[in-house]
């Protein structure tokens, strides 16, 4: 069984030491960022003792850099901080909106993109938006560090690709080129604070005649993990992102989905709704790309 312990390392090396020591001894260990999922699980579904490694005292998890080529968001940056950053909001409005959809003011003060991803819920709102924006996970590892596209990170419901001696440092996104827009939409039965029945993130780049030269589409809550849907992106490429192209992208999202029926929605309903969300998110992303010209 073991006992509970709490450590708050102040460097990547110290955090890796703790993880490696636990990997060797077989004792359970878990990284803590905002805690809005972990603390709930600790009180309910999973009370087993473990060492909790608070990663919020590490410099690399607290950085938010908007560079000329790349945007880096540390794994400990809370949603509220993203929402207060006007430059980030202008560059990646869909991603910031996805983060802003999660929980109340209180939750926004703690919850992080990194935690949302590591928790690996199929319905995580920020994951499809990160996939659409070509997000890359920066992972601290016993062997140094490694990177992985966001769409490869979740390997099953509640399971991620991190090895025992690894933790997520942050997320990188290419700085969007000119005439690029993104959007994320989800469907919930209420107006606020609920878990997605389906979600879709879209990022588009248009040339100066309005033709789509780059596209990425991510979907959530319609498969065991959030998915990148290349067929949807291909339906938009080379088009003016009109109704027909958006409809084709939506069809591709439906085809890629493999949802379950639960209290939030049936298989049939989710497959239909994800197409609608793709069309609408695509239209918003197109509008933003034109506005950003």
């Amino acid at each position, binding site marked *: 069984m073991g*006992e*509970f*312990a*709490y450590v*708050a390392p102040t460097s990547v090396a110290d955090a890796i030491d703790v993880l490696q020591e636990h990997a060797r001894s077989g004792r359970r260990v878990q990284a*803590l960022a*905002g*805690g*809005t999922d972990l*603390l*709930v699980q*600790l*009180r*309910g579904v999973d009370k087993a*003792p473990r060492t*909790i490694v*608070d990663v*919020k005292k590490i410099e690399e998890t607290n950085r938010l850099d908007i560079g000329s080529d790349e945007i880096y968001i540390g794994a400990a940056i*809370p949603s*509220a901080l993203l929402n207060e950053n006007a430059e980030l909001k202008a560059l990646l409005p869909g991603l910031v909106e996805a983060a802003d959809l999660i*929980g*109340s*003011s*209180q*939750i926004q*003060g*703690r919850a992080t993109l990194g935690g949302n991803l590591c928790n690996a819920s199929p319905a995580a709102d920020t994951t499809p938006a990160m996939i659409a924006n070509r997000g890359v996970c920066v992972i601290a590892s016993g062997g140094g560090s490694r990177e992985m596209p966001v769409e490869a990170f979740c390997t099953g419901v509640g399971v991620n690709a991190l090895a025992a001696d690894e933790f997520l440092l942050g997320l990188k996104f290419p700085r969007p080129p000119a005439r690029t827009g993104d959007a994320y939409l989800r469907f919930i039965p209420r107006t*606020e*604070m609920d878990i997605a029945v389906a979600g879709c993130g879209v990022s588009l780049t248009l040339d100066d005649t309005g033709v789509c030269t780059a596209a990425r589409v991510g979907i959530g809550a319609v498969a065991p993990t959030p998915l990148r849907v290349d067929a949807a992106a291909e339906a938009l490429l080379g088009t003016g992102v009109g109704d027909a192209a958006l409809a084709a992208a939506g069809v591709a999202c439906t085809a890629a989905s493999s949802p379950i029926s639960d209290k939030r929605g049936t298989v049939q309903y989710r497959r239909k709704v994800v197409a609608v969300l793709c069309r609408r998110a695509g239209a918003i992303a197109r509008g933003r790309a034109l506005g950003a010209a």
Partner: protein
Amino acid sequence: MSKIHVQTTINGEQVDFLCPPQQSLLEALRETLGMLGTKEGCGTGDCGACSIILNGRLVCSCLMLAAEAQGQEMTTIEGIADADGLHVLQEKFLEHAALQCGICTPGFIVAAKALLDRDPNPDERTIRYWLAGNLCRCTGYDKIVRAVQDAAQQLAYEA
């Protein structure tokens, strides 16, 4: 298991306490420090009754480990009134009868304080969205929203 020594600042005062590693900050406030103003509703971050202001940010104390409070600064409901008397928000909650059973009230007051600290003149929509993480099962919210609006006006008048 060994307890963790935490040094933190609560309502302007340096506080030291010991906590088990898995204890929530809410439990430490209520059970170790005897600060019973902060309430436990759901214990899962849904109801806002345990709201505190941590380093200027509104958070649920039930969703933090007590150990995470090391070196931080927090304001609880006990720190809202000062030596001269109630905070305007507290006066307006009384004036507008914006409470019945009172369990949610400390959380609402703390959340409303966090809002007015950053936005002294919020419109009704902003107030309703900001307070959406605070649940009240008695009043139906209208009186609470009016009390916050009135407090904002009063604070603007006094400024």
